[in-house]
């Protein structure tokens, strides 16, 4: 039912116009955000360490834009998403929404806030309560927020269902009666119910099939245009992120290593990690497979329990030098709209030239041109 072709929204021009139109004022501002999950052991549950899932990140989301967040599994993307929606209590740092500090608001304090910030979840199967009807699910935001929509709840819910491309008559059906893509639409309808200003989506399409994935991406796109939404989209699929985002943050081990607008990031990545990440993505183009140079990162992401000193990427970086093991590079803007945390950025001037290369740095990656 997800007819996808659209006519009325003037396609891409509208999209590109959005950030400007929404005058790009800061909607969400995150400073020094940290989340450490304590590791407890023993009878007395003493804390013996901490998972430093998010370890000091700063960024802003501007009204009307889409900020994409990418990174490898376990680098803290979801944790970050939960922190900004205040599903988790930050260990340190602040989260400001529309200039208001919401870092330590309680359930009650957050409640009004919740209208403005909504979430779309990854797993369309587990994000809908199987015992609730679609009607119940989509009307939950109204009930929980005590909002009585004009024209009655049911009407409003059906209108929402229609908006996301579902049949409003399915009001009384249960989630299991829908396919994955349809379920994801239900989740989106729920997120949109209260007309939020910002939507945080944690891997909104990862669990979906290719064709369905594209339908949902289109839907998100359309909704943004229509409602002037601001998105914070977390995903590990760089192609999808490239497609949907205006700006992109690349995370590595609890930190943002690069934050740039789409074009700059994909065309001239500065952080070696970003570069390696992008070179790893397979391209559905047979002709190009011979020409590409690949950087194969060996080994795994280090444990967030005891992250490497200095630059966290130095253990896997072919450019690493002595300074990288000691000094943590700050995230600074090296080019307009491109912030990087690296001592030896690519496509830019080396900031610590002449430092002694780290022994074995060359062997941590394998670069080859596949044939």
């Amino acid at each position: 039912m997800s007819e996808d072709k659209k006519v009325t929204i003037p396609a891409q021009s509208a999209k590109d116009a959005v950030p400007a139109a929404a005058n790009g004022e800061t909607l969400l501002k995150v400073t020094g955000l940290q989340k450490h999950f304590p590791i407890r052991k023993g009878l007395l549950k003493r804390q013996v360490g901490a998972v430093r899932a998010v370890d000091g990140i700063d960024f802003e989301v501007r009204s009307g834009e889409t900020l994409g967040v990418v990174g490898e599994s376990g680098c803290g993307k979801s944790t970050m998403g939960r922190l900004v929606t205040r599903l988790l209590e930050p260990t340190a740092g602040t989260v400001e929404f529309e200039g208001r500090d919401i870092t330590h608001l309680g359930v009650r304090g957050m409640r009004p806030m919740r209208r403005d910030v909504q979430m779309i979840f990854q797993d369309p199967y587990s994000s809908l309560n199987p015992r609730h009807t679609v009607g119940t699910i989509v009307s939950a935001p109204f009930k929980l927020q005590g909002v009585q929509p004009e024209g009655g709840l049911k009407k409003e819910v059906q209108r929402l269902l229609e908006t996301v491309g579902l049949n409003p008559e399915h009001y009384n059906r249960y989630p299991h009666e829908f396919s994955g893509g349809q379920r994801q639409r239900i989740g989106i309808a729920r997120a949109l119910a209260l007309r939020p200003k910002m939507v945080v989506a944690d891997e909104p399409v990862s669990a979906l099939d290719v064709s369905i994935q594209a339908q949902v991406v289109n839907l998100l796109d359309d909704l943004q245009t229509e409602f002037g939404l601001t998105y914070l989209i977390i995903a590990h699929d760089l192609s999808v992120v490239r497609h949907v985002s205006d700006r992109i943050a690349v995370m590595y081990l609890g930190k943002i290593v690069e934050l740039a607008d789409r074009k700059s990031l994909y065309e001239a990545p500065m952080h070696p990690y970003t570069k390696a990440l992008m070179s790893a993505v397979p391209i559905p183009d047979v002709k190009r497979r011979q020409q590409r140079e690949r950087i194969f990162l060996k080994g795994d992401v280090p444990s967030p329990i005891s992250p490497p000193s200095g630059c966290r990427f130095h253990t896997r970086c072919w450019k690493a030098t002595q300074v990288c093991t000691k000094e943590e590079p700050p995230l600074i803007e090296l080019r307009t709209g491109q912030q990087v945390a690296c001592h030896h950025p690519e496509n830019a001037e080396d900031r610590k030239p002449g430092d002694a290369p780290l022994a074995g740095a060359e062997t941590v990656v394998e670069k080859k041109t596949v044939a």
Partner: protein
Amino acid sequence: MTAPLHDTPAEAAPSEVSGAADQAGAKKVEGRSLKQIAWNRLKQDKLALAGAVIVLVLVIVSVFAPLIVDLFGHPPTEFNQDKLDPLTNLPQGALGGVSAEHWFGVEPNNGRDIFSRIIYGARVSMLVAFLAAILAVVLGTLFGIIAGFFGGWVDAVISRVMDVLLAFPQLLFIISLVSVLPNDLFGLTGSGVRIMILILVIGFFGWPYVGRIVRGQTLSLREREYVEAARSLGGGSRHILFRELLPNLVAPITVYTTLMIPTNILTEAALSFLGAGVRPPTASWGGMLRDALGTYEHDPMFMVFPGLAIFITVLAFNLFGDGLRDALDPKGTR
């Protein structure tokens, strides 16, 4: 604003484009509610259905025991010593005095009608088993869900309490407890007290079993994203516990309840058998078995009837509970 997106082809049906197939497929394959699926599976399970029928009959029998006995039997406490052999005090006639008048024969020594005692015994068994199960389930669900959901020290405390309760040698403890409990409690006397004590004690010792299951389920359920979703919409703990989690626990809890009832019936019978059950002259199956011990060689029917009553009842509940579990099993492997 609805314009661009609503070209849902549900109305465009006849040409079978796009969504129609989607819908048709959904309807055919997954379009049935869990209840329907369960019911369909249950319908095919002959044994479970047989169990359910027996359970139903038993419930009806228990509820209408006085009526049934009025119609077909003798009052359960009426002595019919003329039906006994004066020398041995055993029932006259074959099969422990089975006759048109006494369908299941009579008891030795006092000649009470076994049929009506079995019927009244069903009442006691059912009452104790059901109420104890409900008590256990209510307590177990409450504590289990709280422990699983809140975790931390709440979980630690509740889990420890459950561990301790599970470490009690229960049967021993219950018979000991019954032996020291006073004869009147909360204004109840006689068999009333005992029934209440049995319910309380069996129910109380049963809840950790439910609690563990519910806790485990809650632990896994609370990781589901819909919980997160509810929270992100501003739902408080109460909303999440009772609106989001509890409905999902209904199936396992229902299954566990049906499977706990037979266990309770057996426990009640065992307690009555050990003399810690209801007080005479209230009939109970375990108590009848205990009475029958004295004469089972010469009057086996007195042992067979209550024994069978227990067996059939427990079996019926087990069959039904089993079928229910299979039917509600989301994996549905059968």
